[in-house]
């Protein structure tokens, strides 16, 4: 089980780093997907090794995939609007909601 959790942690960290450092909004969204998947691996791993009699962990992973797909849709729609407004999808472009 350690390997699974280690993989998930590494994946989450890579995703986190991506979210924090990418300028490109699409890149940020992709990094987010990595973080989701890290969580999924955790769910499945825990389901497989700790609560074997239940399917809840696997079920939750499937829910997350569905929600992530919906989120990606909404996110890409927002990215499209951002592109139309600022002629670019750099995350610094739309930092207008500040002081």
């Amino acid at each position, binding site marked *: 089980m350690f390997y699974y959790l280690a993989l998930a942690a590494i994946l989450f960290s890579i995703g986190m780093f991506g979210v*924090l450092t990418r300028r490109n909004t699409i890149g940020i969204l992709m990094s987010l997907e990595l973080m989701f998947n890290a969580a999924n691996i955790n769910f499945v791993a825990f389901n497989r090794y700790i609560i074997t009699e239940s399917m809840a962990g696997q079920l939750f992973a499937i829910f997350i995939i569905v929600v992530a797909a919906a989120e990606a849709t909404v996110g890409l729609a927002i990215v499209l609007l951002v592109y139309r407004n600022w002629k670019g999808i750099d995350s*610094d472009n739309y930092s207008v909601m500040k002081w």
Partner: protein
Amino acid sequence: MTEHSYLICLLPAFSFVMIVFFLRWKEKVAAGFSIAMILASWVMSVIVLIETLARHGHAYEAFYNFLTFPGLNFQIGILVDPLTAVMLVVVTTVGSCVQIYSVGYMHGDPRFSRFFSYLSLFLFSMLGLVLANNFFMIFIFWELVGLTSYLLIGFWFEKKSAADACKKAFLTTRTGDLGFLVGLFLIAVYCGTFNYGEVFDKIAMGAMSTGVLTAAAIFIFAGAVGKSAQFPLHVWLPDAMEGPTPVSALIHAATMVAAGVYLVARSMSMFVASADGSMVVAIIGLVTSFMAATIALTQFDIKRVLAYSTISQLGYMIMALGLYGYDTAHGQHSVGYYAGTFHLMTHAFFKGLLFLGAGSVIHGVHTNDIREMGGLYNKMKTTAITFMIASFSIAGIFPFAGLWSKDEIVAATLHHPVFLILTLAIAFMTAFYMWRLCFLTFTGEPRDQHRYDHAHESPRVMTWPLVFLAFLAVTAGWVGLPWLHHGFSSFVFHEAPPEHHGPSYALMIISLTVGLSGIGLAYLMYYKKSLSPDVLVNKFRPIYNLLYNKYYFDELYNVVIIRPLLSFANFMWKFDANVIDGLVNLIAWLTVLWADVKQWFDKWIIDGAVNGAGWIVRQTGEGLKYVQNGKAQFYTLFISIIIVFIGLIKYELIYLAWGWPIMTIIFVIGVLLLTFVSRSTRQGTNREIAQEDKV
């Protein structure tokens, strides 16, 4: 009826209230209502007198304890004994006549209703004074009659002399009342009650030592001196003649000034117990009487002559009462008490009549000066005849009322030769100046033709009271005829009726002779003109001047009392203006100064603290606002760091041993660091955006 005698004094009070609140603008209704009330009082008084006679003079007393302190008791109550009953009838009789007379005399006066309201208030006070059963109540009504006297003397307050006279009367009587008040304090302290009977019982049991008793008696007498215009407080009464003449008749001749005599008669038990006090009373009475009679010889104002005559007669009564106290204290028999009260009654009638007659004359000729009158008999017969009846009465001519009462006063002085001689001299002078007045006014040639032509008899509403009072001026004395075994003396007496001596013909002849010779001298000088008064005046010029200027009492008081008082008041005013006001202003200045200091403190320290707090918050906010830089990634980073931090604490990878304050400081420092980071990135991006815009 006796148990309802409080109504006698309440009816005029009711009339006063009604006139003041409802009838002020209805003059005739006001006068009628007022007269109806006093007539009702008069009827009740007569009934009360008859009932008192039927009770053989036993006193009726009813009271209500309205304030009780340990050792001192205040009562409201009435006492109806023979003295009260007689006084009630006298006051209401003269009061009724004067009110009816006033309808004519005050006709056309702009304050007609107010005059009747004042008269009603006065009668209420006077009847209350007579009915009171204790010293405290009598003092209250005493002050009330003083007040109404003030109001009525100053009734024509547009005249400066009237305004001055009412102030003088008020202040002078107040001087005496101060003594009265001190006497009341002594009574309260030593007897613990004000009720007449209880006070006299306590005195009889020796509640007061002789010295204190004498002091109390003399202090009480001081009140009577003020009110009855006795020496040395007599100066207000002649000036009080500035009031309307009915007022002079009612208040300053018949009733209020008799209140002093009434007070002395009422507290006779105190004087009997103190021979020294009684002697003071008798001497003051004699001095007053003699002095006033001599002044009256020389005056030319008809009302002033009558005023001095009043003072003189009041002195008579006071003297008789004082001699009674003195003689009784020494175990001698005396008729003084009976003589004083008897003369009080007869004097009220004939002096009231004299004043009303004088008012009628003044009404006709519009002057007070007898030098401008003369020969008025032909013009005003009723007035002249009634006036002469009263003059006979006061001169003590058979069979008029004055003879009987004056005889008794002479009889009261029999043990004291000096008193006897002076009393006869006063009787002589009285007869002389009264008939001088009569002859100058009503007989001879008119000295002022213009005034004579305009003179006219007064309307009937004024002459009828004159006739009624003239009837009483003749007959009132007959209740005390020396031939009667159960006359006035067996009704009004102090402790025991005087022994009945039967008529003393020698005394009667002497006093009749004295009276007739006085009249005769006046006849020779002013009717036959066979003796010229001017010759006498020139012979005794200094004495005449002294008398004509009333012994210079006003001037003396002016120099001795009024001027020093005024200069003292002036000094006090200056003290007030400079020292007191200076102190006040200094305090005000200091207050302003202190307020300035506080204002400065407020502005710079308090407001500074408040504004400073605001300023600090604002600057902090100004610095911290850059954390909110609008970059989602920055926020995410922030959240991540905090989560990591919390995780570290949760799993005790770092320790909170440093405590929360230090953690907070670390947090704040972290936030500031991040702020700087975000500012630097912002500047960078701004530059990039600017470049993009150019492109």
